C-alpha cells in the first residue's frame, strides 16, 4: 500500500515535469505536433487517393477504411501517450542509464514508463477528435456497446503496441543495438494495420492474429462495428470485442519475457 502510494506520487510528478518541459520548449512542441498532423494526414491522403481511383479494396470503401484507421490511431495514441518510454529501453541500455533503474526501490518497468521526457497528450487529443469524425463519416451506429467497448479496445490495442515494444526492448539486453529492428517492427505494424487483414494470405492472417496480434488492434473491432460480412479467419464477429483480453494476454507474455531478460541482464560495462 505504501509502495502504491509512492508510485502514484512518482507518476504525478512525472506528468508535472512533462507538462512543464513542454511549456518550456513551446516552439519545438508545436513543430512536433505539426509533424503528428502531417504523419496521419499523409497516410489518410494516400488512402483517399487510392480509393478515389479504385472505389473499393476487397469490399472496403474509403469511409470504412477511414474508420479502420481511426481505431488504430486511437490505440496507437494511447500507447504513445502512456507507454512511449517503453520504446526507449534500448537507448537506456546502451547508454548505461538502465543500471541506475535497477538499484532504486520501485519496479523497474514502472520506472521506465515514468521516465520524464516531453510527453504530452497532443496525439491522443488529435486521435479522439479524428475518431469521432471518422465514426460519423463512416456511419457507424453508436450504442451502449460502442461507448463501453471503444475505450477498452483502444487500451487493449495500446497494450499490444506496448507489448511489442517491450519485447524488442528486452532483446536489447542481449543485442544492445536493436534500433533498426525497432524501426522495422513499427513500420510493419503501421502497414499491416492500414488495410483490411483479409487481403493477405491465410498464413499471414494467422500470424497477424495469433503471433503478432495487430489484427486485434483495429481489423477485428472494425469488422464488428461496421457489420462487415467478411471475417479474415472465420471467427465470429464478436471476436472484435476480445481486443482488451488479447491485449492483456499479450502484454503478460511480453512482461514474462522482460522478467526473464532482466534476470540475465549484465549491463554494457559502463
Amino acid at each position, binding site marked *: 500500500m505504501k509502495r502504491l502510494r509512492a508510485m502514484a506520487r512518482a507518476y504525478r510528478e512525472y506528468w508535472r515535469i512533462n507538462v512543464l518541459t513542454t511549456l518550456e520548449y513551446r516552439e*519545438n512542441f508545436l*513543430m*512536433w505536433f*505539426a*509533424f503528428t498532423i*502531417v*504523419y496521419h494526414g*499523409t497516410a489518410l*491522403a*494516400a488512402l483517399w*487517393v*487510392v480509393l*478515389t*481511383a*479504385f*472505389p*473499393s*479494396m*476487397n*469490399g472496403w470503401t474509403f469511409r470504412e477504411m477511414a474508420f479502420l484507421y481511426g481505431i488504430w490511431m486511437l490505440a496507437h495514441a494511447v500507447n504513445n501517450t502512456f507507454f512511449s518510454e517503453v520504446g526507449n529501453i534500448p537507448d537506456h541500455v546502451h547508454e548505461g542509464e538502465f543500471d541506475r533503474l535497477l538499484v532504486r526501490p520501485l519496479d523497474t518497468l514502472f520506472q521506465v514508463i515514468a521516465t520524464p521526457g516531453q510527453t504530452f497528450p497532443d496525439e491522443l487529443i488529435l486521435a479522439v477528435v479524428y475518431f469521432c469524425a471518422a465514426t460519423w463519416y463512416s456511419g457507424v451506429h453508436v450504442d451502449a456497446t460502442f461507448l463501453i467497448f471503444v475505450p477498452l479496445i483502444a487500451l487493449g490495442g495500446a497494450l499490444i503496441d506496448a507489448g511489442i515494444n517491450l519485447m524488442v526492448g528486452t532483446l536489447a539486453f542481449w*543485442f544492445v*543495438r*536493436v*534500433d*533498426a*529492428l525497432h524501426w*522495422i517492427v513499427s*513500420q*510493419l505494424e503501421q*502497414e*499491416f494495420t492500414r*488495410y483490411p487483414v483479409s*487481403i*493477405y*494470405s491465410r498464413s*499471414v492472417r494467422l500470424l497477424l492474429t495469433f503471433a503478432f496480434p495487430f489484427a486485434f488492434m483495429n481489423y477485428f473491432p472494425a469488422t464488428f462495428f461496421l457489420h462487415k460480412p467478411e471475417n479474415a479467419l472465420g471467427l465470429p464477429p464478436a471476436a472484435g470485442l476480445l481486443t482488451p483480453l488479447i491485449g492483456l494476454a499479450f502484454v503478460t507474455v511480453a512482461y514474462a519475457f522482460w522478467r526473464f531478460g532482466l534476470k540475465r541482464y549484465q549491463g554494457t560495462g559502463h
Partner: protein
Amino acid sequence: MSVTVARPRFRLEPYVEFAKVAMAKEATYRFDVFTSVASVLIRVYILRTVWVALYAHNAAPKELPLHAIITYSTVAMLMSLVMDIDQTRVLHDSLHDGSIVLDFTKPMRVPLYFIANGTGEVLFHAVLMLPALGLALLFVHIDVPSLGTLAVFFASFLLGYGVGFCINFILNCTAFWTLEITAVQFIVTWITDLVGGELVPLLLFPAALQNVLLFLPFAAMFSTPLLIYVGHIPPSQYAVALALQAFWLIVLAAISTVMWRLGTQRLVSQGG
C-alpha cells in the same frame, strides 16, 4: 565570430578519402544494414498484396495495368534506399555541436567535404540496392524496359537525386539560423513521399491535383524517373521531362548556394 575560408591549391584525393571513410562508417552497423535490406522482402509482399487486391475488384486504370504499378512501386522502394538518405546531416550536426568552426580551419573546401562525405554514404546504399532487388524478385516480377529507356531512367534518377540533395541541403542550412529542425525535416520527408509519387503514382491522383503536382520539384525526385521506367513518358517527351528536372535542380542549387553564403557569413559558434 567570423571565419575566413582557407583556399589551398585544389587536390581531389582527400575528398575521395572522405568518401571512402563515410562508406566504411555506414558498413559498420551490420545488423542495421541487414535488417533494412531484409525488410524489403516484407514491404514488397505488402505492396504486391495491396495492388492485387485493388485491381481484383475494380476496373484497372488504362494507363497503369497491374504489372506496371507493381513494377513502379518496387522500383520506387529500391530508389528510396538511396533517396531517403540525408547526406548533409553532418552539416546540421556540426552546426549543433560547434565543430563546424574546426572544419573551416582545415585545409579543405568545406562544402566539398560535405558532398564527398554524403557521396560515400550514398554509394554504399546504392550497392545495397542489388541484394534488395534480388529479394524483391522473389515476390514480384518487374518489367525491364529497353536499354535506351533504362539509360534515360538512370539519367533522370540522377537528376532527381540532385534535387533531393539540394532540398536536404537547404533544410540543413537553416540550422545556421534556427537550431532544432528535425521535426521540419520529417514533415518535408513525409510530404515528399506523398506528393512526389513514391507512395502512390501521381497518375492516380484526381486530374486537377495531378496537373499541379507533376510540375513540382517533388515529382522531379520520384515520379519523373519512375514514369520513364514504366514507359508512361514516351521517348518523344524525354527531353521535356529531363529539362524540367534540370530546371528544378538549377533553381534549388542556386538557393543552396545563397543559403550557404549567407549562413557562413553569420556563422555563430554554438559554444562548441
